[in-house]
């Protein structure tokens, strides 16, 4: 093994985007038949490095060796020819194409589509049998869940006979069950001698699946170690440059009055399908209620209807006062006026205007606030900027520049901007969805601390997350949603991931053992489009 040529060797890779040095003199060796992990803070340069390997970006300097021979990867075509496949952080799929069309795109066999499609269909069946990668070949990509979309991306690579597979933050959008399945597949691929590079922020995944791991920091490769010889704490420290608490430090809750009171809440989507089928839920002051559930079981709709931009029916009270569920007084602005703050699940599509400056995003949704007004007509931009600078300081947003556009911040810092905006408003109720999706460990730690601090001030918090770990760590009470209904409530110290997992699969009878098949069948029944809206 020692004298075998590495599957991939990068030597002295450097890359600058204008004034930003994304990669600095990076070298790395990955042996065939291994899973190599890469971790690093948001913006450390991981995606850039991999995109260079895949020929998406061109490196300013450096060399790439594939299987011991120097490869001249000028574009993705060359990378594909060298046996490299990549699943990007943001999928590169054509939404209104079918799965099959996406798979053959760029790898067609001739000028006409029919034979290509037929061949791809046959190959897909083989691949499905070999790896358990089941997809619906004729479904439109926009109609399938993210888990399935990711499978399409992997199939795309395998269809092109990739020996080296790069996955950039593959589990960021997956449910635990989907993630488990992904790692099973990766195991299969490794055992077939394929080489895998895995970028993730989740140390648990690194520890469980990789053979070696590299750590990146501010564009540089700071360490490469054998996974068996390191620990999560050490990796976290290497990554962030300081010691990181890997669990949430919080006092027991002291719940007060009921702040949010929801009765028989129902929501229908545009197609008339009932997505919430009668929710009853209470959140008290000084309490974090976590909503667990497989994505697509109504959590998003719950947040949206509570946040005021989805109509619903039923009863909704805040501090005992009724709130409208439809009509003119049911929108984001009226909710905010009543003391409801909302960190949406998708920060880039909803929480932020990507082309707005940080200061504008701080005012976003709160642009009617009195402190932001100069007079009856005009907003006070200077005041907003000052306020933003202060918030950025307190939330350690990097760089702390109110005049930078939101799109120029990394994901973690974008999330901090949204959080700063919503938390600092001192709301009675905070709705918060997927607070740490795609965010690095250092930032996760900080975000969790803020949420707990808000609770300790006696605020009510409703937390939605697909990360069971996060739910367990933060919540004072956990409600599990399945198919638009609350299946049950549990206290975090009286339950475990297994029990929650069964509830998430719609199985209330958690005392008895259940087979995997039963769970999967139940999940499939719950919604063919589970996870669609993430």
């Amino acid at each position, binding site marked *: 093994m020692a004298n075998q040529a590495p599957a991939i060797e990068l030597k002295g890779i450097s890359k600058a985007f204008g004034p930003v040095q994304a990669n600095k003199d990076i070298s790395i060796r990955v042996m065939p038949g291994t899973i190599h992990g890469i971790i690093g803070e948001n913006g450390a340069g991981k995606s850039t490095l991999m995109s260079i390997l895949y020929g*998406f970006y061109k490196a300013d300097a450096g060399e790439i060796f594939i299987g011991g021979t120097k490869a001249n990867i000028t574009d993705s075509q060359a990378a594909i020819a060298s046996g490299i496949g990549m699943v990007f952080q943001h999928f*590169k799929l*054509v939404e209104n194409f079918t799965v099959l069309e996406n798979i053959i795109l760029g790898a067609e066999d001739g000028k006409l589509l029919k034979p*290509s499609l037929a061949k791809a269909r046959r190959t897909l069946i083989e691949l499905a049998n070999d790896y358990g990668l089941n997809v619906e070949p004729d479904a439109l990509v926009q109609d399938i869940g993210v888990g399935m979309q990711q499978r399409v991306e992997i199939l795309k690579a395998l269809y092109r006979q990739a020996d080296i597979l790069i996955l950039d933050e593959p589990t960021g959008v997956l449910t635990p069950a989907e993630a488990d399945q992904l790692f099973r597949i990766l195991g299969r691929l490794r055992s077939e001698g394929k080489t895998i590079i895995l970028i993730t922020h989740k140390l648990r995944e690194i520890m469980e699946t990789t053979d070696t791991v590299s750590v990146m920091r501010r564009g540089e490769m700071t360490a490469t170690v054998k996974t068996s010889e390191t620990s999560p704490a050490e990796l976290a420290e290497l990554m962030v440059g300081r010691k990181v608490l890997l669990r949430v430090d919080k006092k027991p809750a002291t719940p007060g009055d009921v702040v949010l009171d929801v009765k028989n809440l129902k929501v229908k989507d545009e197609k008339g399908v009932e997505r919430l089928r009668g929710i009853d839920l209470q959140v008290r002051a000084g309490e974090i209620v976590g909503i667990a559930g497989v994505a697509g079981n109504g959590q998003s709709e719950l947040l949206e209807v509570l946040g005021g931009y989805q109509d619903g029916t039923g009863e909704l009270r805040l501090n005992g006062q009724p709130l409208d569920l439809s009509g003119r007084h049911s929108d984001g602005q009226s909710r905010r006026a009543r003391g409801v703050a909302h960190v949406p699940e998708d920060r880039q599509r909803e929480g932020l205007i990507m082309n707005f400056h940080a200061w504008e995003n701080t005012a976003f949704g709160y642009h009617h606030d009195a402190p932001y007004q100069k007079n009856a007509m005009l907003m006070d931009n200077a005041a907003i900027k000052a306020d933003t600078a202060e918030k950025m300081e307190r939330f350690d947003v990097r760089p702390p520049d109110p005049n930078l556009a939101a799109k120029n911040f990394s994901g973690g810092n974008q999330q901090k901007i949204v959080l700063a905006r919503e938390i600092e408003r001192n709301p009675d109720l905070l709705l918060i969805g997927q607070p740490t999706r795609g965010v690095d460990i250092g930032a996760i730690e900080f975000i969790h601390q803020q949420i707990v601090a808000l609770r300790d001030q006696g605020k009510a918090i409703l937390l939605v997350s697909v990360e069971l770990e996060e739910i367990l760590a933060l919540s004072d009470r956990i409600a599990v949603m399945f198919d638009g209904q609350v299946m049950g409530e549990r206290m975090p110290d009286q339950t475990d991931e297994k029990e929650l997992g069964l509830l998430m699969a719609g199985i209330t009878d958690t005392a008895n053992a259940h087979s995997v098949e039963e769970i999967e069948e139940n999940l499939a029944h719950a919604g063919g489009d589970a996870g669609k809206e993430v």
Partner: protein
Amino acid sequence: MDYMTLIQLLDSSVRLATPLLLACLAGLFSERAGIFDIGLEGKMLAAAFFSAALASVTGSVWLGLLAGIGASLMLSALHGVASITFRGNQLISGVAINFLAAGMTVLIAQDWFKQGGRTPSLTGDARFEGITLPGADAMANVPIIGPLYSELISGHSILVYMALAAVPLTWWLLYRTRFGLRLRAVGENPAAVDTAGVSVIGLRYAAVAICGILCGIAGAYLSTALQAGFVKDMSAGRGFIALAALIFAKWRPWYALWATLLFGLFGALETRPDVIEGVIGMKVQGQLLGALPYLMTVIILAGFVGKAIPPRAGGEPYVKER
């Protein structure tokens, strides 16, 4: 309205629809690949001039057609350089091309022919004549289908048949070939095409070039088939109507045919106030008649068509690094 009138009305619709159809399909290729093109008008106009000019000089309409296509391709190339290579604003580039064509055609025409920005009248082989399809004359007297065949179907210039053939061809190219798959993909998500190892730039230039060719034919049709020479501004806003038809057609080839035929029919009806009067039973006031095609479009659009979703990456230059 009697049967013959109907046939004549439809016949006129086909003639009026043809340049719209060609331009609409041209726009379809370009926009399906993610390049918005409001310069259809200018390309048509330039092609109308150069095809008439070359046809007049050489006496061969086919050379004229080639010149028209060539001129339109030049403007397409300009649009490509601006919006693909230099990632400029596609709308601005289109506006500029319209102005450029409107000015240049007259300047050059005046410089070459000194006939007040017109080309000399084309005669004989310098013009596309109507083609009488086999058996058209023989069939003319058969009831019902006779006039249908000999009047409506037969007798158009070859470019009309080319335009009609372009519809299934476009459909086939778009939905049945590798090129079409990639073309549609590049208008929806260029990054997907790029990471699949296909050149985004190459595809987009190809699409823009096809757009140029089709606009070239449309322009040549105006000046060498419908007319016998170039008159300044003779495209008379047809490029914009074609654009409207494209949205109307939701960027699909068969719909493009129906949409442009509908616009053609509106145009034809405008020339026949007597028919409208016969159908609705009262005289339509002159200016209202002129507004009728546009009013009808608005009504149909509001009443029956619904939302049209443009290609998702349309109008945006493909930028990987900034």
